[in-house]
């Protein structure tokens, strides 16, 4: 089956090309369904090629296509192992659903085919990222997803804000990529190759735990991860990215791309194992991000912004997990999150669609009657993310917290943060849910909400099913998921295991916290008129604590000033100034000499005479007459 793996990338790429060039002629229908079909096909291929791993009897294999940059030993090759299979399935699966959804959502858009072209391009890039068998190729995917996210965020480029958001996303990602790039340099300088398996095999041979080189590599890798997965301090691009069409937010900025960082850390698990310092930093950053984002999310009024910050916060969880060393837990949360967050976004999209583009929750409400499907599916997602048993979110989040707690020592502090975040999450998600669906409609006049078409609701339903049920894959009773992933983490030391009783009351605490959050929020927003949300906390949180302005004032502006000075002073005044100075010197001396050229014969004669005397003297000196 792996012989056909190249199709995984080739198909979406082909879809992108076709839609880009002849999509207009194909027409909306064909283009849309074509785009969807392609991804669905990819999903099936991946499924059949990867199904063997479920039994655990299939071994990871590397599929080499061709040698890419020989001098650095970078090949175009896929590593086909449980980890890549999992991600491939998520990407293609969720991707396919979102393609389907987009057919309805983007209906009537002027550049409909181009949208699907970009979506396909993204799928291809993402698959390159997850399937790569070496860091170089991974970096390719890494950047290409950045490209497609740029294209999709600024899809409605007529909106300056959209264009700016896309640019911001790409540039901030590039900052992270720089870290990744430097990490690659060190990796090559250390191992002389980029191939995962070689590197992971040699690490234990060459280094002991805590080796400086590895720490450096992992830290830089994490800079990259922080960029992609929107961690402190590079998370600022994600909220703006909501300028893109909602399906994009769902697919790229919730389900798949943003989790690339987590995936990459998981991929490099061996390295991170040998760099406990980095791991700790990763965990701390993750926790901090989760907390900060959650707090900010509380005050947001734009439905998509809330989801954006909640995404950041959830990513924080995942990063915390991988930092702790609970890779499978992190990936599990990644999986569940992919479903319920995609669902949330699509639901939100459906709502926005219904309200003709209205995104402010304060003008929503009472939608449960008019759009039941959306209401129910989103309800499931809400409970899931809030961490209510038995929905998937509960299991994955709980596992992370448990792993953190189990590490003991100061890690307990991180666990506490996690719990707090859980509380806040429950709170703001409830806030969102209540404000949107319950109460009476606050919709502006003339807007008549309606349920979305089948192309949009179908994905909602499917995702809802998964969000509800998938948690069962990895309960403390049977860790199907973890066992499935085991071969991918061969040679990685297992995270500390807490015994069952601990797990139990940990889970209980988490559940309790979640419920508390829900109750508080419900009591606060469950009434007819909304509570006034002014006061320094609300405004600051709404403004994301002015982090953007901070960057603007202390990083961007000074940089601009330096560049301006170089461009307007150093180049023309200093360098060219010097050059012109020389030129003036030459011509100036010419003008001086002109004065000697007075036209006076006697003067010339004197010149000749004087020169002759000088020559006489010179000759006498050189001739040894003196």
């Amino acid at each position, binding site marked *: 089956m792996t012989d056909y793996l190249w199709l995984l990338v080739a198909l979406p790429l082909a879809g992108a090309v076709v839609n880009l060039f002849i999509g207009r002629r194909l027409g909306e229908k064909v283009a849309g369904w074509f785009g969807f079909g392609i991804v669905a096909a990819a999903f099936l291929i991946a499924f059949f090629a990867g199904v063997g791993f479920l039994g655990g009897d299939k071994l990871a294999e590397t599929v080499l296509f061709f040698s890419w940059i020989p001098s650095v030993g970078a090949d175009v090759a896929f590593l086909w192992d449980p980890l890549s299979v999992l991600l491939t399935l998520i990407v293609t699966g969720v991707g396919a659903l979102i393609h389907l959804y987009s057919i309805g959502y983007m209906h009537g858009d002027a550049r409909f085919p181009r949208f699907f072209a970009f979506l396909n391009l993204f799928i291809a890039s993402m698959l390159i990222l997850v399937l790569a068998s070496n860091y170089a190729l991974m970096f390719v995917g890494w950047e290409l997803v950045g490209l497609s996210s740029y294209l999709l965020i600024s899809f409605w480029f007529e909106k300056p804000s959209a264009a700016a958001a896309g640019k911001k996303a790409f540039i901030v990602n590039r900052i992270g990529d720089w870290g990744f790039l430097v990490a690659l340099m060190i990796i090559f300088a250390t191992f002389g190759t980029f191939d995962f398996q070689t590197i992971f095999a040699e690490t234990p041979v060459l280094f002991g735990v805590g080796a400086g080189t590895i720490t450096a590599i992992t830290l830089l890798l994490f800079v990259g991860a922080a960029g992609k997965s929107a961690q402190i301090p590079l998370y600022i691009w994600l909220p703006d990215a909501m300028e893109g069409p909602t399906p994009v937010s769902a697919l790229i900025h919730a389900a798949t791309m943003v989790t690339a960082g987590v995936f990459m850390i998981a991929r490099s698990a061996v390295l991170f194992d040998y760099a406990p310092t980095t791991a700790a930093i990763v965990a701390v950053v993750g926790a901090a991000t989760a907390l900060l984002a959650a707090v900010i999310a509380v005050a947001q009024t734009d439905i998509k912004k809330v989801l954006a910050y909640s995404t950041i916060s959830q990513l924080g969880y995942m990063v915390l997990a991988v930092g702790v060393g609970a890779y499978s837990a992190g990936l599990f949360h990644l999986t569940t999150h992919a479903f319920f967050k995609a669902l949330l976004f699509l639901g939100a999209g459906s709502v926005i669609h219904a309200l003709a583009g209205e995104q402010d929750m304060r003008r929503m409400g009472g939608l449960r009657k008019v759009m039941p499907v959306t209401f129910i599916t989103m309800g499931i997602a809400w409970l899931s993310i809030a961490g209510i048993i038995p929905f998937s979110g509960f299991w994955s989040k709980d596992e992370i917290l448990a792993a953190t707690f189990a590490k003991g020592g100061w890690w307990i502090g991180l666990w506490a943060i996690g719990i707090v975040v859980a509380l806040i999450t429950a709170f703001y998600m409830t806030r969102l849910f209540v404000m949107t669906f319950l109460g009476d409609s606050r919709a502006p006049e003339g807007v008549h909400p309606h349920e979305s078409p089948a192309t949009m609701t179908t994905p909602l339903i499917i995702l809802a099913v998964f969000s509800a049920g998938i948690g069962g894959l990895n309960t403390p009773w049977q860790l199907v998921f973890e066992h499935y992933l085991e071969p991918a983490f061969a040679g990685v030391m297992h995270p500390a295991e807490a015994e069952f009783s601990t797990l139990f009351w940990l889970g209980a605490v988490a559940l309790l916290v979640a419920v508390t959050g829900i109750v508080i929020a419900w009591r606060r927003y469950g009434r007819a008129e909304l509570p006034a949300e002014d006061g320094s906390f609300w405004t600051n949180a709404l403004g994301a604590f002015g982090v953007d302005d901070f960057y603007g004032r202390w990083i961007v502006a000074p940089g601009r000033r330096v560049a301006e000075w170089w461009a307007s002073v150093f180049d023309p005044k200093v360098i060219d100034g010097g050059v012109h100075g020389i030129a003036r010197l030459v011509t100036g001396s010419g003008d001086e000499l*002109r004065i000697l*050229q*007075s*036209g*006076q*014969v*006697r003067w010339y*004669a*004197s010149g000749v*005479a004087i020169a002759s005397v000088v020559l006489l003297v010179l000759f006498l000196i050189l001739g040894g007459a003196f």
Partner: protein
Amino acid sequence: MTVTVTWYLLLGAALFSMGVAGVMIRRNALIMFMSIELMLNSVNLTFVAISKDLGLIEGQVAALFVMVIAAAEVTIGLAIIVAIFRKKASANVDELAELKG
């Protein structure tokens, strides 16, 4: 003390230098020209003195040739000066300085 060639050479040198000075200091084209003639004379003196010293007749022949050349120079020179005088009614070279720079 007997007169050695040295004396003649020194005299020649002196006259030549005075010629140089004349060219440098006089403003009248004619007198500048005279100074040049003076220089040529001192050259001849030098030639002859040396030919006497070394017993080589060539020196004197050379002197003769220099005279011939000087003569030719004079005719042309005076012709030029006269021609210019026709226009400017002056042999003052300082007034001939429109070509410069």
